[in-house]
């Protein structure tokens, strides 16, 4: 069945208008990051000149490179931590049978009812009392255990035939070896999905880095941007926008590359 031509035109029109509206804030910021301050302050919409000055300045006047590196370390550490812990837990729920498994599964479900924001005060006290303020440990450790990740991987581990497990038992392959050499490689797609998701959310994290960093040593780029925005006051929009564009670039690229997988994976983890 083909769509009639007039219907197609209506669809393309709606799609284009929606795209322009959705993309406008980002595009405006992008073009502003190449505009001179004079153009911006006079309210020009189309730039009269093109300059890379804003990008030079934001790196020059600001430890942005440092912040980027911190964010990268924090995001990768959280991503790996989540993958390891979630896959171990998912393995236990799918392949191991033991007393108390159902109760523990219920405990995992229960964790989703506790919002991180509601438990942030004692968590802050814990990190502070451990001396983990301004450390990567303090920034990452609270996010390793993850019910959503466990459920997502559990879903994909369930697709692995039980016969493989039985065969490995007969061949005398232990559980940990089976987990490493059979289960993880077979669930590669879901691991990538969860990894991308974990990286995205960690990179974009806001409240926790705000509380657990007090100086520039481990400060992430999001809090750096907050600082940039409040320090620069409202005069240097080009510089601020350059900073914002640099902050979103890594996640946007990751999203564009992994969009299809992410969409499938998230819907599966969410709804099954």
């Amino acid at each position, binding site marked *: 069945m083909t769509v009639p031509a007039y219907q197609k035109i209506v669809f393309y029109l709606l799609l284009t208008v929606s795209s322009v509206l959705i993309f406008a804030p980002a595009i405006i910021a992008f073009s502003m990051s190449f505009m001179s301050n004079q153009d911006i302050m006079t309210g020009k919409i189309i730039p009269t000149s093109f300059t890379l000055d804003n990008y030079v300045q934001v790196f020059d006047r600001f430890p942005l490179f440092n912040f980027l590196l911190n964010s990268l370390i924090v995001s990768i550490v959280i991503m790996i931590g989540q993958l390891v812990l979630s896959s171990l837990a998912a393995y236990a729920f799918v392949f191991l049978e033991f007393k108390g498994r159902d109760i523990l599964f219920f405990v995992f*479900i229960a*964790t989703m009812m506790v919002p991180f924001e509601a438990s*942030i*005060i004692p968590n802050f006290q814990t990190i502070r009392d451990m001396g983990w303020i301004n450390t990567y440990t303090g920034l990452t450790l609270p996010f390793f255990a993850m019910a959503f990740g466990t459920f997502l991987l559990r879903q994909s581990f369930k697709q692995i035939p039980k016969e493989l497990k039985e065969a490995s038992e007969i061949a005398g392959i232990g559980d940990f070896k089976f987990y490493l050499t059979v289960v993880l490689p077979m669930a590669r797609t879901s691991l990538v999905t969860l990894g991308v998701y974990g990286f995205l959310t960690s990179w974009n994290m806001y409240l926790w880095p705000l509380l657990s960093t007090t100086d520039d040593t481990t400060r992430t780029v999001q809090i750096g*941007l907050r600082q940039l925005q409040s320090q620069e006051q409202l005069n240097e929009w080009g510089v601020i926008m350059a900073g914002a564009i640099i902050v979103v670039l890594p996640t946007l690229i990751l999203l*564009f590359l992994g969009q299809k997988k992410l*969409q499938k994976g998230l819907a599966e983890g969410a709804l099954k």
Partner: protein
Amino acid sequence: MSDLLIEAEKDYTGEFLKAKKVQRTKSFLKGVLFLLPSIILFSVFLFYPLFKTIYLSFFLTDSSGATTVFVGMNNFKAIFTSPLFLKSLEVTFLFVLYTVPGTVIVSLFLAVLANEKLRGIGIFRTIFSSTMGISVAAASVFWMFLFHPTIGWLNQILELFGVEAIGWLTDPDWALISVSLSTIWMNVGFTFLILLGGLQSIDSYLYESADIDGASYFYKLRRITIPMLSPTLFFVITVSFINAFQTFGQVDMLTRGGPQNETNVIVYSIYQEAFMNYQHGAASAQAIILFVIILLLTLVQFKLGERKVHYQ
């Protein structure tokens, strides 16, 4: 002779039961070992803090957050008579009221559009989901400019139509609407992506048979798409609710809770109370209220959704 045999048999069953017990203990230990890292971290950063928050909410605290005087329910009495906290609750509910329907309707519209099998649809899908990759901090910076009183695009467009400029973030009547507007934009990407996934899993056979019957586009939308999408829609709505109650970043970046506390949502109120006024006890009482709200929402989702699992 027979006595011996029975004895041997007894021995054998005894051994067997013993072996079974050992086996069971072993498999239990193995299971726990795989789950141990998660259980430890959940205990330290989730369950312990929950109980600690409840505990703290019954105390006054010093500036470091250590408990000083037991005050029973007084913190709760105090917050529920404090105009500031009541205002914050009101603002939070209004914020939820603006952003949840806004996000879901816009995302659903975009998802239905992007589900058409047209040439180049991939580009549109990428654009629609793009806001998911934009952090709260960066998105707030983008919108801060759009909301700028003189050079911002929104007021410039208004001027074009001869409408008086609006103090988007400074006018108490507009601030919450502005923050909501930017929040809807931030949330559309994720919600769109989930809804599109839901749409794509609808059996195309349903549409084909409707086409044979000559059903119109809107008839199909109403009678096939929306009903088939309802589990996904339900999931998206509850997640949006939970997210809205947890909003912090955009408020911190755009308005710092102002003007006149018009955008002081509950998490921002907790943050101020705990980390600017150093009242960990009173802040904990507020956090408990937030916890109860989220708990109820999650329970509603589990009960009505008939689905075991959902996104955090």
